[in-house]
């Protein structure tokens, strides 16, 4: 199994979820993160003082899929999350050795669908 970890723009989450839905991928875990990279933050002002916030709100979406699905899932995410502007984010792939569905105790590919 492959874990696909995508860092995307918050306002792209709905599009990405729809794209995954279209592929039949429903299981995923999402969290609020902050990212730094090439994208520049907006400056904030509080009583004349300037704060440059260089950690920007991002969404991390994790989904563990079978080896076979990985490629199409990455493509779908990449397509749905892209705007072409700096800050679109990354997708990281890594190997998962096993998965267990807590409810049933099922392991392996059966646990993630």
């Amino acid at each position, binding site marked *: 199994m492959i874990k696909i970890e995508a860092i995307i723009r918050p*306002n792209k989450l*709905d599009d990405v979820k729809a794209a995954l839905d279209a592929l039949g991928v429903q299981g995923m875990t999402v969290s609020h993160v902050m990212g730094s990279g090439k994208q520049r933050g*907006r*400056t*904030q*002002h*509080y009583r004349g003082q300037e704060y440059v916030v260089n950690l920007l709100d991002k969404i991390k979406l994790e989904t563990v899929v079978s080896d076979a699905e990985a490629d199409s899932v990455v493509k779908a995410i990449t397509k749905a999350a892209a705007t072409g502007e700096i800050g679109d984010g990354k997708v990281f792939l890594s190997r998962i050795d096993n998965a267990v569905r807590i409810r049933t105790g099922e392991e392996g590919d059966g646990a993630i669908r």
Partner: protein
Amino acid sequence: MVKAGRILAAGGLFLLAMGAARAEQDIDTGDTAWVLISAALVMLMTPGLGLFYAGMVRAKNVLGTLMHSFTMVALVGVAWVLWGYSLAFGGDGALIGSLEWIGLRGVTGDPGPYADNIPHLAFMTFQGMFAIITPALISGAFAERMRFGAFLLFMLLWSTFVYSPICHWVWGSGGWLGGLGALDFAGGTVVHISSGIAALACALMLGRRKHLGSEEMAPHNLTMTIIGTALLWFGWFGFNAGSALAADGLAASAFVVTNTAAASAALSWMLVETLHRRRSTALGAASGAVAGLVAITPAAGFVGPVSAVVIGFVVSFLSYGAILLKGRLGYDDALDVVAVHFVGGAWGALATGLFASLAINDGGANGLFFGGGLALLGRQFVGVAATAAFSLIASLIILLLVRVFIPLRVTDEDETIGLDLSQHGEMGYNLEAV
């Protein structure tokens, strides 16, 4: 329209009741205390409205939405003193006031022409708080997408060229609607219909928020909306009972029906929700309370408590229906100003034509259900229609004019980022900083 019994009765009956020992131009300290505290209460309503609205938007627009109310206290607060009050209450014109009281020249601590029992300045500032909240009410319509500069310019023009004239028509000396003899105790037409229909103009001109319908736009903090509702309700006692311009039986009566209608409408909104969706919500209870307060506003000094129960009970069904209708018609009145203030205000104005009773206020009239026939109801209808028509058209013209100088909407990117960062360079919450 007749505001409070106070205004009309100022030269007559009332003075006798005050006790013979009081000279004609004397200020009554009890009445003055009541009107001053009422003015303070109405002032508090505007930030309260800001909280009510800001709780309903997404977190990235919370400050922008608060600013829509807060800056009205500042902007109209100054404009009212410099020219707004004079345009609304100066002179004897039918359509608009005069410039005689510009910069409050001649408006002093002595009683003025509108109330002989309180300082003219107390009357002025009490009225000023109404002038402040009215444009703020509109801002719910264009929440989450209006450019801040365009907002300020629109509001300055609207306050001057829509609020002041309508206020003069209804409450100003010589105002044509006041002359007709329709009733508006505390601002059903002047405040709620004028702003509620202007909200429609704004929603139409600004267009829908990006991704409305596809993205989730749930209220970001309903506890803030509840706090705002509490402050609105609290302040509304000043709004309505303060409009008696005296601490007397009429004020007490207005106070009671205000509370009663708000309570009744909160219950009936919860009921209609339960009928429609099987659950009653906190946002619903709050929305109902505000709708009830809107509806009782024109009627407050003219109807009794049981009538108030009915007026409040009915308004939730009308406003809730208008919200559902909005979904069908497709305009994006983001925070339902049309449904709550225009529909609620119009119902309240017409309900005054149904439920008004001379037994409550002998400076008023009898409505349809109290033996007065259709006469009052007809006058009320004229008031609603004239106010709505003028405010709708004038608001559209002002928006078109503002658009010549500043785009009304923020850019798409700024809308995505939110008003707080894009318009003000701030964030509402930094709850997780170290």
